[in-house]
């Protein structure tokens, strides 16, 4: 009865109530949208790398190194020598290491030159290893493993052959047409930049940049299955010249700082090593100004919508004098009338919150493919995280407060 009364009373003032609901919906969309995107972006970034103890690159800013090595964002400052890679990889503290060589692309997707350790040791999310949806890791020089997204959007199958382009634009003018790569594996989706990466061996990446004569000679050797990639390269006196970065895991975590210092103070080549977790928290620190600005703006938007709600309720009190007096006479207590007004405010907030959640979920569901393509962000369309529920709860409490002036007025008049 109570609820129906509040509902019918709101229905009776449809235009102003609908406008208020609209304003409240927009404000909750802004607030939840900001909160949710922030949370999800953070999660998406945090999930992109795990289980890697150090990332090594040419000397640059640690954020920069993190962004280009893990997220393929921006361009590498410089490469470093293969010899340094080998030195570090053979350090007795290092358990495993893989190189990361960037610079080429296939139809706009970044090509990453690495070795087989990449597939066994790189992990994302909560220490999840990479798994193959189809096929397996590359063995030979001209074999390629695709990220899930690359295979899906270009509709590639195992056994297809692709060629790579020099540079990273989707419209490169230099194509490595003379060397085709055979697709041997497709990774399962990870929701990280790996999905949009084309993986080949560092040797393969080096080979396509060789002179045609050497390239053809190497191609001829490939039929000999007994030789490994490195052995073929050794026979021709070539080795990968330079790589962009390397990731490594240690035998014991306690040696991470000593190795980091050793790499940072290396006299032969200017290198730097970063801890991914530390670099990520630096990233969030630089973002925190933006975050808090957005948070303040969204709070202000919600406050203005709540003030609108308060004003709407208050201005309706005059026309409701008769109605409230009648309720008093048939036995409604002043408290009943107080809570009737409060309930109306809560109903408006409830409808607004539901519409806001539907709008954001729907929007995210539609935008999801685009966000993943353009920014490599995976955003969960499920809004019901604990912090989001808290945000909605706070909005409800504020709505209760916003209705106090009108409810108190009604209470006072009916005493």
């Amino acid at each position, binding site marked *: *009865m109570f609820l129906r009364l509040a509902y*019918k009373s709101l229905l*009776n003032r449809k235009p102003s109530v609908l406008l208020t609901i609209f304003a409240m919906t927009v404000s909750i969309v802004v607030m939840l949208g900001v909160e949710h995107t922030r949370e999800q972006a953070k999660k998406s970034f945090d999930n992109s790398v795990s289980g890697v103890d150090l990332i090594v690159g040419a000397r640059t800013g640690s954020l920069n190194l993190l962004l280009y090595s893990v997220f393929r964002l921006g361009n590498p400052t410089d490469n470093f020598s293969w010899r340094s890679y080998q030195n570090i990889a053979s350090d007795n503290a290092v358990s495993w290491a893989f190189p990361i060589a960037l610079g080429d692309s296939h139809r706009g997707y970044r090509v990453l030159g690495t070795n087989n350790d990449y597939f066994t040791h790189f992990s994302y999310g909560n220490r999840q290893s990479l798994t193959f949806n189809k096929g397996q890791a590359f063995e030979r020089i001209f074999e390629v493993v695709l990220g899930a997204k690359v295979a899906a959007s270009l509709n590639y199958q195992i056994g297809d052959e692709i060629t790579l382009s020099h540079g990273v634009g989707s419209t490169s003018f230099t194509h490595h047409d003379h060397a085709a790569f055979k697709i041997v594996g497709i990774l399962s989706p990870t929701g990280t930049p790996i999905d949009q990466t084309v993986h080949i061996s560092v040797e393969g990446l080096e080979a396509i940049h060789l002179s045609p004569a050497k390239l053809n000679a190497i191609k001829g050797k490939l039929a000999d299955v007994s030789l490994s990639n490195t052995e073929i390269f050794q026979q021709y006196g070539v080795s990968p010249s330079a790589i962009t970065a390397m990731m490594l895991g240690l035998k014991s975590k306690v040696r991470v700082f000593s190795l980091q210092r050793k790499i940072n103070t290396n006299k032969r080549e200017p290198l730097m090593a970063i801890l991914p977790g530390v670099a990520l928290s630096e990233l969030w620190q630089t973002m925190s100004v933006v975050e808090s600005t957005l948070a303040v703006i969204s709070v202000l938007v919600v406050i203005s919508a709540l003030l609108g709600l308060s004003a709407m309720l208050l201005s309706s009190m005059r026309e409701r004098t008769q109605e409230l007096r009648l*309720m*008093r*006479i*048939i*036995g*409604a207590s002043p408290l009943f009338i107080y809570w009737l007004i409060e309930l109306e405010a809560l109903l408006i907030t409830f409808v607004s919150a539901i519409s806001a959640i539907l709008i954001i979920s729907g929007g995210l569901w539609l935008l999801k493919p685009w966000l993943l393509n353009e920014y490599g962000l995976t955003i969960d369309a499920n809004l019901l995280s604990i912090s989001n529920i808290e945000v909605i709860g706070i909005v409800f409490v504020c709505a209760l407060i916003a209705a106090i002036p009108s409810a108190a007025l009604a209470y006072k008049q009916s005493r």
Partner: protein
Amino acid sequence: MSVVLEDVKFAYSKSSNSNILDINHWSVDEKEKCFVYGVSGAGKTTLLNIIGGLIKPNTGSVTVLNERIDQMSNSARDKFRAHNMGYIFQQFNLIHYLSAIENIELAHHFGRANIGRSKLSNNNTSRHNKSSTADMCELLERLGIQEKDWQKPASQLSVGQQQRVGIARAFINKPKLIIADEPTSALDQTSVNSFMTQLTELCDETGASLIFVSHDNQLQSYFNNVQSLTDINRASKGKV
């Protein structure tokens, strides 16, 4: 006795000595239908508000159905009124966005909530509930409201229909006292006759007392006790 007023004085501002009401002794018997005649501004509505406990007299005692309503707490008075009194006004008897049925249900809800808490067990309340839905339909049919109009918002009913739904609303909790404040002044003559007949018949059947105030002398014939407010109210005598 349904209502007994003893030495009741009331003024809207306490500082001034000009009382609106000054009643030495006035009472209404059980099952009596009392017509109080008075011109506008004579204090008719004030009198009804004092009997209904909506305002407190400055001095004196107000006894309704053998209870001192002027000594009750606010919430006790709300409950007492919801359960024991039925109100009918000149207009705005109904909450305009609720249907006829819902208006009556709301009044019933307040009346029932009050008994439910004090006397009846859940079992009895649900039985009470069922019978009251039947009561509602019976009342509405009896008062000539067609079933197709029951679910319409009250604002879409004619004034005559609204006043008759008002009667049903007033009677739904089987009150012992009906208070009517010029309920016929917005009606035409034909409607007035059927309204008065239905109201007085229902009072007779349910055994409720009726206190009816109006400036319209012609309604006297429906009542067995007719009084002029000027005779009761010493304050008005003083002015004249």
